[in-house]
């Protein structure tokens, strides 16, 4: 009797496979658009929505590892006289042409680049174009490493939903624009998330004080008409 039942449920496995397979097939397209609605524009453009849970390697990370990390360190801080995590240092070489020119100069009579393959590439003036192309991901990587350039937001974000709900029409996102104060140019008002009642003012308010932290107003809220944070 028991074996009969087991055989019966084993025989039903193909049925379950077909039903669940069809359900999954039907679900995938809609799931894709749903997941995509929580991703940033740059992330959507560069990677598939199914990669949302894995953090993709930063572009240029591998190149940095072979060409620079042995001296500068993986975090860029190994050499204090050339701290690559400092945006001011990196900012001088945002253009790959300037970076290449700098890399060709010798340091204390030694070539700047140690890795033999990269050294050959950097020193060969006939391959300048190729060298510039190869340096471009490293330049991008350094920008993010030093904080000089914003990193692509690969995690889930609600900004698309916020933009849709407030009817944002700009080129960045509502939150970004409000945080940088674009709203003050009169394009739109950043009062979508203003609390109906603002926190009370601290008892003593000396002139020149900014209360942003104190009263819990984000820069965005400064557009609220009655917001005291200015």
């Amino acid at each position: 009797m028991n074996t009969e039942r087991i055989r019966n449920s084993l025989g039903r496995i193909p049925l379950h496979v077909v039903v669940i397979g069809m359900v999954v097939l039907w679900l995938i397209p809609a799931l894709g658009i749903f997941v995509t609605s929580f991703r940033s524009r740059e992330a959507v453009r560069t990677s598939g929505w199914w990669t949302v849970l894995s953090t993709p390697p930063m572009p240029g990370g591998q190149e940095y590892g072979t060409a620079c990390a042995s001296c500068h360190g993986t975090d860029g801080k190994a050499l204090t006289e050339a701290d690559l995590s400092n945006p001011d240092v990196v900012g001088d070489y945002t253009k790959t042409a300037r970076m290449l020119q700098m890399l060709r100069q010798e340091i204390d009579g030694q070539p700047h680049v140690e890795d033999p393959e990269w050294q050959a590439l950097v020193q060969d003036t006939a391959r300048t174009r190729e060298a510039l192309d190869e340096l471009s991901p490293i330049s991008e990587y350094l920008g993010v490493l030093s904080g000089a350039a914003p990193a692509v937001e690969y995690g889930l974000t609600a900004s698309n939903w916020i933009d849709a709900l407030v009817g944002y029409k700009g080129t960045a996102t509502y939150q970004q624009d409000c945080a940088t104060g674009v709203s003050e140019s009169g394009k739109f008002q950043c009062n979508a998330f203003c609390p109906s009642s603002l926190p009370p003012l601290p008892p003593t308010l000396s002139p020149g004080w900014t209360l942003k932290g104190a009263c819990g107003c984000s820069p965005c809220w400064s557009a609220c008409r009655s917001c005291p944070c200015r």
Partner: protein
Amino acid sequence: MVPKIMKQGTLTPWLYLSGALLIMLVFIVYPTLNTVMLSLRDKTGTESAAVDCVPGEPCWGTFENYRYAVTDPEMTQALRNNALWLLLMVPGTVGAGLLFAVLTDRVRYERLAKTIIFLPMAISFVGASIIWKFVYYLESGAGAQIGVLNALIAALGGNPIPWLTNSNWMVNNLSLWIVGVWLWAGFCMTILSAALKAVPVEILEASRVDGATEWQVFWRIMFPIILPTVTVVTTTMVINVLKIFDIVFVMTNGLNGTEVIANRMFKFIVTNQGRSMAIAVLLIVLTIPIMITNVRRFQEQERIR
């Protein structure tokens, strides 16, 4: 003896009908007749369609717009595609709907499974088209494939396929047709599932006791019983497919060999009213026979009841 007040004159029934008739006249009969009239006029509706005739080329006089509607290469392509849609999508949706209705009938998570298959019906055609444009997305540059299908192909080591801009028009049409099946299978499933549930259990049990296999039970007993419903679903789908527009308009706008009649009609609505109306009339003419069979079928079912 019936009191005089209860006797109906010949006029009274018409009086009762007048409301419905008036609405029919204003919203159905007049627009249809007006469409037929305009289909015989030129692009702005001011002169006879015959003015568009080019000397030395075939011309049907007043019916010039109809000559366009049935002989122009773009239109013959649209007619061919509509026929193809009928041949592929109607069996596709009804078949998928029936298969799913039968299969889910035997599992415990029937409700959930059916809800998911029905889900696309809740999405607008335009929304569904955008969803599938994303599925079919082709990255032609050096970047990663962000469309599911091409990413899968790339992962298996193949070359990405342009699903909607293929040089083979059949691929483009098949891509669109899959969207249609995805959208409509849930509709067919719901109606067919209801019909399946109405099949008396006694008959099924009797046949199983007599030694019929599940295959035989389905084809010899269930299918004949639900056949009227299958016919109604099929005719409804035929009408839906003949009118197909949104998917094509959003995803390809009729490019790369995917033109359909309704999209052609929409393209001309501003630029050439006469042609647009002639195509509309053509579409009505194609749908009427199916409407008639559908109505007949309903009447027969009423009579049986």
